[in-house]
């Protein structure tokens, strides 16, 4: 038996489709893409044909309106087989959320249907060389010039960079206002003065492209401004509230995949005349892995449902807890999976080697684990202060 999370019939369909694609389309190619570090366009096309890009997008923009839950179910299922290829989809969601959250009707109509259909993938550009955990340290500027903005600067580590068509970019419109001087823009590939820098070579998620974006007097019309001037940081934070469960789902999927591999291997591998799964210490390792994964899943689904209910304005604490817990569980589970495989786990002959490399990123991007803890603590303090008033 598996834990029953009362998924709706349509949610179960989403899972089934994602599973079929993961097994039939991704599994045969995962080692290829990991080794070649190519962008997995042929699989992106499969996602598009199966409507997987559309689950979380509202129906009026060509989606299915299945919310953050719809997104995490897809990402989790795909990542059970491969933690990198699904990032084309998950990072597209990261680029779509700011438009969903603060786009005008016109902007939503212009950009979201192509994202839902998978015709265009998206990206989210917040990080810079000198501004990682502290986004307010960014130096990219957007200067107003009549009906236009002129952007200068660069963004580092942008997932889907170069491969995406639609970019949500954060830049300073008013230096003197600090955190309130950041604004958010939609850029399109091909905008004048918008170029791509180097592509990172990485430890894991190698099928995902991570590039530098460079703006050299990049001139865009003011209709590309998302929300109002100065709202950028709030848009970024609200986006992360919605998207961090996606990273958690990636982590959870990878962890689940690793557990399955570990159980399978432990039953087959014989040492001292018996399958290693008969050793109680191995059984206990597997038991801990399974329990932590289930706890992570319960937290993830609960947060996703809470976000989708729309009952609260912000879910920063819950999203941070979810991402923190799921990503740390993924790191622990994949490390132990390699341990159970022994020396074989350290080789590319078995998938757990890659799973451990892929898992690591989930404790880093969209805020490191330390930053999640800061966020959780900050909210605890706020809640305490409100209560004691």
């Amino acid at each position, binding site marked *: 038996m598996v834990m029953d999370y009362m998924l709706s019939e349509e949610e179960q369909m989403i899972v089934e489709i994602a599973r079929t694609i993961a097994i039939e389309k991704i599994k045969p190619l995962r080692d290829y893409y990991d080794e070649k570090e190519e962008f997995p366009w042929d699989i992106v096309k499969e996602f598009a044909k*199966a*409507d997987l890009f559309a689950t979380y997008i509202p129906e009026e923009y060509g989606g*299915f309106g299945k919310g953050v839950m719809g997104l995490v179910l897809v990402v989790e299922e795909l990542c059970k087989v491969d933690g990198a290829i699904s990032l084309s989809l998950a990072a597209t969601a990261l680029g779509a959320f700011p438009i969903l959250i603060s786009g005008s009707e016109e902007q939503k109509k212009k950009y979201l249907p192509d994202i839902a259909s998978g015709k265009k993938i998206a990206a989210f550009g917040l990080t810079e060389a000198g501004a990682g955990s502290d986004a307010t340290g960014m130096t990219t500027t957007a200067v107003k010039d009549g009906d236009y903005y002129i952007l200068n600067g660069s963004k580092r580590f942008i997932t889907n960079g170069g491969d995406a068509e639609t970019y949500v970019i954060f830049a300073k419109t008013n230096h003197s206002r600090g955190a309130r001087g950041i604004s958010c823009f939609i850029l399109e590939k091909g905008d004048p003065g918008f170029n791509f820098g180097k592509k990172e070579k990485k430890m894991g998620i190698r099928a995902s492209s991570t590039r530098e974006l460079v703006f050299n007097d990049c001139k865009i019309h003011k209709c590309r401004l998302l929300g109002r001037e100065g709202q950028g940081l709030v848009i970024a934070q609200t986006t992360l509230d919605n998207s961090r469960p996606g990273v958690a789902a990636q982590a959870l999927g990878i962890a689940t995949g690793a557990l399955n591999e570990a159980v399978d291997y432990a039953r087959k591998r014989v040492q001292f005349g018996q399958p290693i799964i008969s050793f109680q210490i191995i059984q206990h390792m597997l038991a801990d892995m399974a329990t932590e994964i289930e706890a992570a899943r319960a937290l993830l689904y609960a947060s996703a449902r809470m976000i989708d209910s729309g009952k609260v304005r912000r879910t920063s604490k819950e999203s941070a807890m979810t991402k923190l817990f799921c990503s740390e569980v993924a790191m622990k589970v994949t490390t132990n999976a390699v341990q159970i495989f022994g020396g074989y786990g350290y080789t590319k002959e078995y998938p757990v080697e890659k799973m451990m490399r892929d898992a690591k990123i989930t404790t880093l991007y969209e805020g490191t684990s330390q930053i999640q803890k800061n966020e959780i603590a900050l909210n605890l303090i706020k809640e305490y202060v409100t209560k004691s008033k």
Partner: protein
Amino acid sequence: MNVIVCIKQVPSLANVKIDLETGRFKRDGIESVINPFDKYAVEEGVRIREKIGGKVIVITMGPPQAESALRETISRGADEAFLISDKIFGGSDTLATSYTLSSAIKFIGNYDIIICGKQALDGATAQVGPGVAEMLNIPHVAHVKKIEFIDDKLIRVERMMEDGYDLIESSFPVLLTIIEGINSPRIPSLRGKMFSKKAIIKTLDAETIGVDAKKTGLNGSPTQVMKVFVTQQQRNYGKKFSGDVKEIAVALVKRLSKLGIV
């Protein structure tokens, strides 16, 4: 261009067991799936529609449970589906099945192409497709491996043969039975799956399609299964020669000449 695809629901062979006493499949608790060859048939039908328009109608003769197989074909792109179901169809052999299916096809009418899988996974006779064509008095091409050309007047297909393939041209209507590998069946999309849940699947019974009760079901089946048995596999292990190349060659030639082969 209207395409009718005939499918069958069969027990999933993944973990099917055979009752050694009766020689029949133990069907209890075994999942039913679309006959694998028929998935290619549905996909090919949908591709024809995507290319030249029209409609893809899927039919199956079977018990009420077979409706789930029809729904799946809708999630894979079919437009409509009919379940041909009646108690009197039970026990049909390939002749009675061909008769009943052809009656249903006549009732539905207005078809240009009928596509069947090359055979069913369980019976594996490959007779029903050609049988339907005969009863409808239309041409058929069996074992099609590729549709080489198609427009609204003409179709040219490659028929798989033991020593290559034949290129065959036909006007419409025509019936094709197709082999696996002719395409790679699409994975149902979310939209397709959701749509298939809501699709209305009509049941056509004996009276509706106007079959002659004497020609369908057990009554219409001249062939009856007398006995089914499981063959014992004879294991004739090969012989392995070892040594250096010369020794192996000598031993092999000796053995072959002893067998009268050289």
